[in-house]
């Protein structure tokens, strides 16, 4: 039997990092900012969480620090993409290089320093335990979805955000400080990416490895498109991705189709994401001003 309670909680846990980042990215893209660097911000958060968890023994302080690291990285993005109005895709790519490089330097220093031979304190499960447990970040990620939906579609701030991503000129004429709003949303998204990284490093595992994010930041961006820039839709897509991830892992572990080398299974989530984009791609309509700089008149 492949579907049991453990598979369900594992799917929720696997969806958590992608969902946190995708929920943030929905806001980011709705306000007109496309950030390819979300992957890098996750890596920042993942390592920060481990280091702080080892240093303090408190996984909750670690979460706070991870969110802070994400905000800090996002500030670099905001400075170049929004303040200096450089191309968002290129700045995002640069953020990824910066994150992979800096975390690489930092992680090696940490392994040779006070982190030698220590393991991080894992985020405790609030419901159940072990493989069937659900931790605080998973609860937060799923609780954020209805809140985000309400904020985006039922409040004045949500309307302003959406207007800024569609017709920034009009939002500006109505009194919105377009670039300030975009920068603030970008920082908020960065915080969620930091948490998303922590969900991988002290939520699912209790360690950091290079390449820990495995493209989940990019998958989150695809999840936003597939979910039509809508938090509930993004949740559905994130669950789908997570289910594929858990399924491929379960199939491997249970030696189903044992003749196939394991890379075939590892490719499944990415291929599925591509197929999903291809199926829904043309129908979705991105925010009109996505990725464009705004010159405050």
């Amino acid at each position, binding site marked *: 039997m492949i579907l049991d309670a453990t598979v369900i909680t594992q799917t929720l846990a696997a969806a958590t990092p992608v969902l946190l980042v995708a929920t943030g990215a929905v806001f980011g893209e709705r306000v007109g900012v*496309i950030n*390819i660097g979300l992957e890098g911000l996750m890596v920042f958060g993942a390592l920060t969480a481990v280091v702080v968890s080892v240093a303090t023994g408190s996984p909750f302080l670690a979460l706070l620090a991870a969110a802070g690291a994400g905000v800090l990285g996002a500030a*670099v993005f905001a400075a*170049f993409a929004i303040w*200096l*109005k*450089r*191309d968002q*895709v*290129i*700045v995002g*790519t*640069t*953020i990824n*290089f*910066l994150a*992979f*490089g*800096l975390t*690489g*330097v930092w992680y*090696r*220093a940490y392994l040779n320093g006070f982190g030698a031979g220590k393991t991080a304190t894992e985020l405790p499960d609030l419901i159940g335990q072990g493989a069937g447990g659900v931790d605080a970040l998973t609860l937060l990620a799923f609780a954020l979805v209805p809140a985000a939906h309400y904020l985006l579609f039922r409040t004045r701030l949500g309307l302003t955000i959406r207007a800024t991503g569609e017709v920034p000129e009009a939002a500006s004429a109505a009194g919105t400080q377009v670039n300030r709003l975009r920068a603030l949303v970008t920082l908020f998204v960065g915080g969620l990416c930091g948490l998303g990284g922590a969900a991988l490093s002290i939520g699912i595992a209790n360690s950091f490895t290079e390449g820990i994010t*495995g*493209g989940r930041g*990019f*998958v989150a*961006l*695809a999840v936003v*498109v597939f979910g039509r820039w809508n938090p509930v839709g993004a949740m559905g897509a994130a669950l789908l991705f997570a289910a594929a991830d858990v399924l491929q892992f379960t199939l491997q572990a249970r030696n189903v189709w044992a003749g196939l*080398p394991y*890379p*075939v299974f*590892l*490719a499944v989530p*990415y*291929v599925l*994401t*591509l197929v999903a*984009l*291809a*199926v829904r*791609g*043309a129908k*979705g309509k*991105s925010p009109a001003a996505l990725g464009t700089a705004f010159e405050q008149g």
Partner: protein
Amino acid sequence: MPKPVRDALLLLLCLAVGVGLIAALVAGAGASPVAVAAALAKGAFGSRYNFGETLIQATPLVLTGLAVAVSFQCRLFNIGAEGQLLLGAMAAVAVGTSESVPPNAKLVLCLLAGAGAGAAWAGIAALLRVYRGVQEVLSTLLLNFVAVQLLAYAVRAPLQEARHELIQSDKIAIPARLVLLQPATLDLPATRLHAGVFLALLAALFVWVFLRYTVGGFALRTVGAGAGAAELAGIPVRQTIVKTFLLSGALAGLAGAVQVCGVTYFLGDRYSPGYGYTAIAVALLAGNKPGWIIVSALFFGALTAGSAGVQTAGVSQVLIQVMQAVVLLAVLAAGYLREKSPTNTGEAVAP
């Protein structure tokens, strides 16, 4: 001051600030910036062999840098040169180890197969973009991850070495290999420098001529300057997008084939040290101009080759990635200052 000179000075100024930041980081990590710089320089230029290594690193960077530049000039974000390179390497190994290919055609067919495979992999992103409206940024990034797994699969099954023990391919046949340029002589030891370096220079020349003097190149740049206007001018935009992707992928695939035929001769599980990603930095530092890409690739090639010596100075090799990022940030900042400067003509520039 003439504009090009001032622009160059601005870029150098921003790069200097970046170098200062990196020096501070190195010092903060407890190493000596001077020692690290010396180790880098020695690793890149310290001997005939080391300089050969620099050229070897620069060769695939010229090709992947051109791949990225071609797509950026058309305002297409092909971030997938890494995956396209891996596909090119796989195709080259498949042809190079095949018994049924005549020996004297092997090298040419290896290189062609590499370019073809890279183009085909990029073609997936092109079709997704043109027919399904999928942003190429996402599709090319995701295809990179698929390519990594495809390679991992290939060296475990269809391309695995004949004894099926190691996770790698067989070596390609000797006629499929690129000539070594500096074999050992009585006085001098051999370097690993191979004829692929000329191939890279030829490719740069080809791309330069193509972009500047052909109808296809003109269409590519016009679509890059604005798809709407290009459409009105009667340029087939979709066709141009697909062709640009194919050219870009072919260049990246060729880089993979050149690595196989010139340097490694076989495939292992983790094949590329990220030439396809560094390519983005190479292209942007060069302003997407083919001539400057040679210079820019040499710079990053020297960094990569030199980084082999950095370990000894107490800082890890990943510092190179930080340097790439800082160089990119410097290029971006210089671009901003250039636009802000009073004599700016306001002409549109490719990303």
